[in-house]
């Protein structure tokens, strides 16, 4: 089993530009230390229609009301501002930016557990005698004996048979080579919605880890 950079085709070049947008890094950095409620705020605003901050503040009284502490309120305000900036990008671009934010957030959290040097983006995994998958993995952890491959989704709807097969096939091929490869999905959505999506899938899921909005911190080794 070996890792390789994805081909620099047109899609990759365009998407690299999205990933390099400073707004992506800003949003992901804020969300890395956010509470579940703050992450839900980001999800709602980035997918919302209203650009009025007060509407969102009203919708999340635990984050912006008198009970919120100063540090928490400051972070919530920063997340609100960044999320509104994402929402302001227009339908197609906001969709790309949201996806890039989830990937960057995943990479940041994984880096806390395994060290940033082991975390890579947009990588393919090659196995002897197996034709390489066209689509690269969003985030990989590349270290001897404990490699990981993660695909990232903005919402539960993004879970589909292709990605489930690709992840499970990679895990299976690794096993055939006596390698250990943990595979998983990071979904910036509620576990309940993910379970609904998975319930109708016939692709194998038993050995694929699912990290949802409630359990994101587990990526970084935290049980928070």
């Amino acid at each position, binding site marked *: 089993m070996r890792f390789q950079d994805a081909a620099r085709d047109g899609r990759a070049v365009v998407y690299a530009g999205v990933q390099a947008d400073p707004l992506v890094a800003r949003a992901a950095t804020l969300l890395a230390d956010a509470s579940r409620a703050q992450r839900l705020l980001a999800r709602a605003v980035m997918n919302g229609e209203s650009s009025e901050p007060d509407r969102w503040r009203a919708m999340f009284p635990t984050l912006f009301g008198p009970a919120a502490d100063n540090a928490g309120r400051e972070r919530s305000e920063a997340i609100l501002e960044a999320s509104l900036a994402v929402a302001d990008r227009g339908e197609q671009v906001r969709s790309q930016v949201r996806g890039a934010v989830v990937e960057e957030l995943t990479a940041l959290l994984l880096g806390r557990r395994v060290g940033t040097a082991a975390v890579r983006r947009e990588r393919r995994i090659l196995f002897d005698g197996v034709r390489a998958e066209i689509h690269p993995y969003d985030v990989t952890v590349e270290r001897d004996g404990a490699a990981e491959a993660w695909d990232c989704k903005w919402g539960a709807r993004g879970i589909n048979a292709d990605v489930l097969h690709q992840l499970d096939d990679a895990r299976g091929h690794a096993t055939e080579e006596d390698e250990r490869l943990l595979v998983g999905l990071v979904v910036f959505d509620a576990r309940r919605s993910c379970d*609904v999506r998975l319930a109708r899938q016939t692709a194998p899921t038993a050995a694929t880890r699912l990290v949802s909005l409630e359990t994101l911190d587990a990526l970084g080794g935290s049980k928070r």
Partner: protein
Amino acid sequence: MSDTTIGVALEQAAAAYAALGELGEAVEDEWSYVTDLATAWETRLDGVSAARRAEAIDDATLGAIEAAIEEAGLIVDPHRVIDWLSTFPQIVLLALGEPA
């Protein structure tokens, strides 16, 4: 404290959610997912309503649910609606201090 109860607020939320669900069904390829998703979250909200129906609701929580209902009413793109079918109930549950 408002004169409204949690049961009344959740009835209003349920009506807004049903309207969202109808919009989401316009995406034919996702009809099964949309109906399953709506059923799963409606069941969760119904459970909260059954347990806390008569409880008075404070102004901030009521305002949060009303703001979420207003926002849901602005979403017209059926693809974005599908995302809101997951997001909206999470906001309502968070406002009520309930886990998703």
